[in-house]
C-alpha cells in the first residue's frame, strides 16, 4: 500500500483525473483503459480507450449510472485478457465484477482495477431533464463528499445509492479517494502494488496517511447515514412481502419485459429459461390452468420468473439497483432483491463482491454443515 497525491489546479478535479489516466496509459502501466468518455449534453458513454488523446473527454465522475459496467469488463476480459487493461469502476461495479469472476464470466488477470469512491448517483431521467446549467456541479458534489455527505438533489439520489453502505472500493488496485478528502485541493490515491507507483512514474506521498483520520470519520458518517435508510427501506419491504398479497402483489405491474434481468450485472446466462419457448403455453394449457384456480393471469409465470431470478442471484446481489432503474413499471425490484439478499447471504455467511477467492454459496459445500437437515425422524 502506498499513497500519492494527484495535484489539482484551479479546483479542476476532472482535468487532474484525465491527466492521471493519461499518465497511466502513456507510462505503459496499462495498454488500454476502460472509462466513460463524454459525448456531449452532459452524458458519457463507457469506452475501451487505446489512444491517450481520447482521454481528453474521459469522465468517470458524472453523478449518473446508466449501466453497471461490470458486464462490459466481462466482455473485455472473458477467459483471457488480450492486453493489460485498466478499468475505472465504481465500488458496486467492482463488487459485481468479482461475482462475475466467480461465475467464470470475467477474469482479473492482467486487469488493473481503478476504483473510485462513489458519493452516490442520481436518477438518470431527472438528471437528463434538468437544464445543463442547473445540473449538479462536480465541485459542489465533491465538496459535499469531502464532508461525508451527498449533495441533495434535485435530481433525486437513486434509492440504491441512498442505502449504499459500501461507497468505498475495497478491492481496487488503484483507489481514488473522494469521500472525506478535499479533492478540490488534490486527489489522494492509494496504490496496492508499490511497483505500480514506479511504473506509472508517481511520487510517493511524503508524510503519508496525514489525511486518513479525517477520511475515516467522513466515510463512517456517510455509511451510518445510509445504514439508517437501508434498514428502514429493507424493513418496509419485508413488511410488504409478508403482508396480505405478499410478493405476488408487488409484481402485479410486472410486464415480463426482462429489463431487470438485462440490467442486472450478475444475471449472465446466454440462454435464460425464461427467454425460451418453455413458457409459451398452448391455449388449451391456459384454459386448464384457469380452471384449476378459477382464473389465470395473462401472461402467466410472472412470479415464477421473479422467484427463479431470486434463487439464481440473490446470493450474489451487490445492491447496485440497476434493476429498479430499468423497470418500466417502477417496481422496487432492487430493494426487494437487497432485502432478500441480505437474509440469504447471512444464512451462508457470504459477502458478495469482497473476495474473488471466496467460493459462491451454491457452488461450494461442506460435508459437515446443516447435518440435521434430511435426517429428521
Amino acid at each position, binding site marked *: 500500500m502506498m499513497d500519492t497525491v494527484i495535484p489539482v489546479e484551479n479546483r479542476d478535479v476532472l482535468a487532474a483525473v484525465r491527466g492521471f489516466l493519461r499518465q497511466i496509459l502513456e507510462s505503459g502501466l496499462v495498454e488500454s483503459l476502460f472509462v466513460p468518455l463524454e459525448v456531449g449534453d452532459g452524458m458519457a458513454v463507457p469506452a475501451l480507450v487505446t489512444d491517450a488523446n481520447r482521454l481528453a473527454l474521459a469522465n468517470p465522475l458524472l453523478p449518473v449510472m446508466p449501466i453497471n459496467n461490470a458486464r462490459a469488463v466481462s466482455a473485455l476480459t472473458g477467459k483471457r485478457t488480450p492486453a493489460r487493461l485498466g478499468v475505472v469502476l465504481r465500488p458496486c461495479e467492482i463488487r459485481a465484477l468479482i461475482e462475475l469472476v466467480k461465475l467464470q464470466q470475467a477474469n482479473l488477470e492482467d486487469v488493473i482495477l481503478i476504483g473510485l469512491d462513489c458519493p452516490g448517483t442520481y436518477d438518470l431521467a431527472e438528471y437528463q431533464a434538468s437544464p445543463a446549467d442547473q445540473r449538479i456541479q462536480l465541485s459542489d458534489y465533491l465538496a459535499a463528499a469531502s464532508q461525508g455527505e451527498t449533495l441533495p438533489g434535485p435530481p433525486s439520489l437513486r434509492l440504491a445509492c441512498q442505502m449504499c453502505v459500501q461507497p468505498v472500493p475495497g478491492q481496487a488496485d488503484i483507489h481514488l479517494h473522494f469521500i472525506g478528502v478535499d479533492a478540490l485541493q488534490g486527489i489522494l490515491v492509494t496504490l496496492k502494488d508499490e511497483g505500480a507507483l514506479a511504473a506509472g512514474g508517481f511520487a510517493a506521498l511524503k508524510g503519508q496517511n496525514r489525511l486518513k483520520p479525517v477520511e475515516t470519520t467522513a466515510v463512517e458518517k456517510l455509511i451510518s447515514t445510509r445504514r439508517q435508510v437501508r434498514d428502514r427501506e429493507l424493513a418496509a419491504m*419485508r413488511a410488504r*412481502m*409478508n*403482508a396480505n398479497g*405478499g*410478493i*405476488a*402483489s408487488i409484481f*402485479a405491474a410486472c410486464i415480463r419485459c426482462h429489463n431487470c434481468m438485462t440490467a442486472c450485472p450478475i444475471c449472465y446466462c446466454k440462454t435464460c*429459461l425464461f427467454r425460451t419457448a418453455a413458457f409459451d403455453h398452448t391455449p388449451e394449457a391456459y384454459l386448464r*390452468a*384457469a380452471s*384449476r*384456480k*378459477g*382464473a*389465470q*393471469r395473462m401472461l402467466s409465470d*410472472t*412470479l*415464477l420468473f421473479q*422467484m*427463479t431470478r*431470486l*434463487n439464481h442471484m*440473490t*446470493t450474489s446481489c451487490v445492491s447496485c439497483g440497476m434493476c429498479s432503474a430499468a423497470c418500466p413499471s417502477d417496481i422496487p425490484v432492487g430493494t426487494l432483491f437487497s*432485502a*432478500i439478499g441480505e*437474509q*440469504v447471504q447471512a*444464512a*451462508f455467511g457470504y459477502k458478495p463482491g469482497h473476495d474473488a477467492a471466496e467460493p459462491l*454459496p*451454491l457452488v*461450494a*459445500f*461442506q*460435508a459437515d*454443515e*446443516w*447435518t440435521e*437437515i*434430511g*435426517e*429428521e*425422524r
Partner: protein
Amino acid sequence: MMSDDDGRNHRFEPHIVAFLCNWCTYTGADLAGTSRLQYPSNVRIIRMMCSGAVDPVYVLKPLIEGADGVLIGGCHPGDCHYQTGNYKARRRYVALREILKATGFDERRIWLRWVSASEGQRFADTVNEMVSELKELGPNPMAEKWAV
C-alpha cells in the same frame, strides 16, 4: 378450498409433489410398495437422476400453482451416486427456504429427506409425517391466488 369447516364435510387432502433421486429414495419408495407398506396416496412422485438435479424452479412452480407440499428425496450424505449431488441439493434447499421465508411463503411446505434404497419404511413414514403436518398447516394459500 376444501377444508374441514367449509360446511360441505370435505376433508382437506394435501397435494404433495415429490422429486426423488433414482438411486436411493425412488428405489426406497419402490421398496415401500413391493413390501406392501401402507402410505397415503397424496404424493405424486417424479423420478430424478439425483437430488442435485432438482432445480429450485421445479420446486417453485408447483408451490406457486398451489401444491400443498414439495418433497425432495436423496441419498444420505456420503452415499450420493454422483459423489456430491446431495450436498449441493442441501445448500440449494437452505437458500430456497430463506427465500420462501422472506417472500411470505411458508417454508414448512418444502421438505428435504435422505432415504436410502433399503429404507422403504422410512419413506412410508416420511410421507405419513408430511401429510399429517400439511393437514395441520392447511391448504396452500397460493391455490387461490391466480394473479401470479
